[in-house]
């Protein structure tokens, strides 16, 4: 029987905390699943006639951010009742299908707002195999406890 992960609570999220990097491959199956769920059939993702010089298809840019939340929840569970207040993306470099990305989250701000709500703002960077940043995600959350 698996042991439930401990909840990640506000006290665990001081400014400056960096989480263990999360590594994953942008597999053809992941791209197919993304296209099916989102309903995004852009031919850049699947039509080999539109592949780049190296023969690689483009991955949907959003796949570089798909594990933004998971990157800080690898060892913990999210307490229920949180709110995603906002999210921003910078797409810096196209990602090809088959690339391995590494995603790392850092707490940029952690504070009580004037209404007493627990605010946690993350900066989450995705890098490719060359170490280049491919995507930056700013994630603004209201933490439940």
């Amino acid at each position: 029987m698996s042991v439930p992960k401990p909840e990640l609570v506000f006290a665990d999220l001081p400014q400056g905390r960096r989480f263990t990097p999360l590594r994953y491959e942008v597999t053809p199956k992941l791209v197919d699943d993304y296209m099916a769920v989102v309903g995004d059939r852009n031919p850049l993702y699947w039509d080999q006639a539109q592949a780049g010089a190296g023969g690689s298809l483009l991955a949907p840019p959003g796949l570089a951010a798909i594990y933004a939340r998971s990157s800080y929840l690898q060892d913990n569970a999210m307490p229920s009742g949180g709110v995603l207040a906002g999210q921003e993306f910078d797409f810096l470099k196209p990602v090809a299908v088959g690339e391995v990305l590494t995603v790392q989250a850092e707490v940029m701000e952690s504070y009580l707002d004037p209404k007493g709500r627990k605010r946690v703002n993350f900066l989450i960077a995705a890098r490719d195999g060359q170490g280049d940043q491919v995507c930056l995600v700013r994630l603004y959350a209201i933490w439940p406890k």
Partner: protein
Amino acid sequence: MRKDYAAGDRLPAINKDIDQKRINGWAALSGDFNRLHVDPDYARETSFGGTIAHGPLSLAFLNELMMACFGQAWARGGRLREVRFLAPIRPGDHININGTVEAASQEGPRRTLQCRLGINKQGEGKAAVTGLAELTLTGEES
């Protein structure tokens, strides 16, 4: 890809139907199995009164719109800012993903655009999600 977008131009909108299967699919894809999204019995007892779609799924729709209009230029330097989740998107909603070029400027071969994006639920006047997209076209995009 159209390269002559000017301020005031509308981006070609996309329509979608939202159902629980799509929301469950996003949960499986992203690993976010928050019960508010995937457990109708639990969600019915919350202030939302039922399950709601994940916020990042809405952002995937905005990305779809920008990729459809601008292709590699969005993947290479697109920025999505000022995202606001104003109303929940629920199973059964029919949504319209739309955008308008708010500003366009030219500097040599580089054309910079700002697009105001929105997701509207059919039958409701107000947007459920809004955002501001910024990108630069260099003239080399496919």
